[in-house]
């Protein structure tokens, strides 16, 4: 397992090579000896390769910013940041998971959709739910209309791959 950060356009790996007697980290082929002296809420003190660095640090959900020796550094966090994959490489048909009634259609034939785009709002068991695009594509046809009632498994929307794209 490696730990990566995004620096500008590059992805930089920090490889932990050893932890004793000191943390030893490989960055772009070079080994660095690291000793953490202070780990504060918004500041830090480190010894890297024998040199002491004292600086300031802020962490947000996607970025870590460092102010050190009159320089500001911005890194994007990559580790552990990923979307939950609930998409499936489905076919061209978006089907109803349960019987219900169409409340609204949010798209039209010919429209390009991205994964997660709202297609149809349906109501079933007193609850309104959004049916989203499972993948990118172009709407071939909407098979239902407002107030139409459908059964479980009914095709609601058909997709075709966006022109010029191979599935």
């Amino acid at each position, binding site marked *: *397992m490696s*730990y990566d*950060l995004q*620096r*500008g356009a*590059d992805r*930089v790996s*920090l490889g*932990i*090579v*050893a*932890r*004793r007697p000191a*943390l030893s*980290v490989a*960055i*772009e082929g*070079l080994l*660095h000896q*690291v000793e*953490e002296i202070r*780990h504060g809420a*918004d500041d*830090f003190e*480190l010894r*890297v*390769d024998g*040199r002491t*660095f004292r*600086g*300031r*640090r*802020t*962490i*947000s959900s996607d970025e*870590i*910013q*460092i*102010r*050190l*020796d*009159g*320089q*500001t*550094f*911005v*890194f994007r*966090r990559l*580790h*552990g940041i990923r979307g939950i994959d609930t998409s499936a490489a489905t076919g061209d048909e978006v089907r109803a998971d349960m019987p219900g009634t169409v409340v609204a259609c949010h798209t039209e034939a010919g429209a390009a959709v991205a994964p997660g785009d709202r297609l149809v709002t349906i109501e079933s068991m007193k609850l309104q739910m959004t049916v989203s695009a499972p993948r990118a594509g172009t709407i071939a046809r909407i098979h239902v209309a407002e107030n139409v009632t459908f059964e479980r498994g009914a095709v609601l929307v058909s997709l075709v791959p966006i022109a010029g794209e191979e599935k």
Partner: protein
Amino acid sequence: MILFRKVLVANRGEIACRVLRTLRRLGIASVAVYHREDRNAPHVAMADEAIRLDGPVPSGAYLDRDQIIAACRSTGAKAIHPGYGFLSENAGFAEAVEAAGLAFIGPGADVIRLMGDKIRSREFAAGHGVPVAPSVTEDEAGEAFLARAVAIGFPLLIKASAGGGGKGMKIVRNTAELAENAALARSEASRYFGDPRIFAERLVEEPRHIEVQVMGDGNGNVVHFYERECSLQRRYQKIVEEAPAPNLPAALRDRICAAAVRLAAAANYRNAGTVEFILGADGEFYFLEMNTRLQVEHPVTEMVTGIDLVEEQIRIAAGQGLSFVQEQIRIAGSAIECRICAEEPDRDFRPATGRIALLDLPSGEGIRFDGGILAKQAVTPAFDSMLAKLIAHGPSRADAVKRLERALEQTAVLGVPTNLDYLLRIVRHPAFQTGRLHTGFLTLHAEDLSAPPADSPTSVAALIAAALGDKAFRDLAFGIPEPHATIGLWRN
């Protein structure tokens, strides 16, 4: 000695805070105005009273003269300090304020109008013996234009009369090139602006931007507070200014300051103003424009003269006249100001936004920080990108540079991109340290001033510090049981 009982500050950000500080020191009650988006801004908290300005556009609220004058009425403020920007050079506003029986802390509307008109102000200056860059405008007789252009002397800049933004501009260095370039410029002028007329003016190469701080009583009495060098500009915006101008011969300084005083006196100038000049390497200087307000960079003058210019503005507006005669105004040491802006110098100074997650302010001898920002504050595109000004004063320019460098290192603004690193690279540049300044400085040294490569010990340490700030990395580094952590990478 009666000054105003209460003064309204019609501005926001660092300048509002700066004016409020002087009001407090002078024992004058203060009123701030603010737009909803600024409700947590420091100027609102600093003032004795704060009045909300309504309006859909935040910057528009601070331009709403009726609401501001109404705020004076409702609070009983007797005078308005406009700061810089917004309504500070709006003659109509100055008139409206005075018509409302209030004092406008600034010059009269006539002078604002005169100096706000590029052509009239230039003619006014020329008419009072202030040098303006020689130029000729093309009339119907094309041949005569070329001859008159040659008479100005080379190098020449040929521009479209109707144009701007550098389109159709040509630099001509000798007679041989003139006709051809004029024809080319004419055709481009015609194409871009629908008007083929062109004009030529003396090109000042590697020009310096020198300006003189003046103060007048409105009765023809004017003093100057010496000059400021404002040559370091990006996108025609100053970012580093200093006083006095480095490497400026004393005789030349005297001539420039005298010209500024001459202009202001001729206009019966009242209150604080700044006369801007272009200075060529040959020692020739030309009038550029006069700003009829307090300048962003006024603190460097305050630091070297020890005079609070806002206090002097208030005294003049209150009818007390000038506090000083020229001989009393002396310069001690050197002061440099940096403008800290929310922008990305490595991406063509694109304005940046975000929330200030962490703010460290500098301190130390000779350090002044004029800011209007707070930690956790959002920086939005609604206002100017300037967040604060850092000013360093020292007994010599070298001392000021050293103090500025240290203060910039101390300063931290995280959460929103700023030009702090860029400013530090400027201040550390040898050409800056030796004072070899001109308006092309940032372009000429662009390569030296660009972001350093990422393999320096500092950037490696920053990368490691960033990782050590991330729980995911800490778990990997410190969450390993023994003896595995000590054994380390081992395969049997």
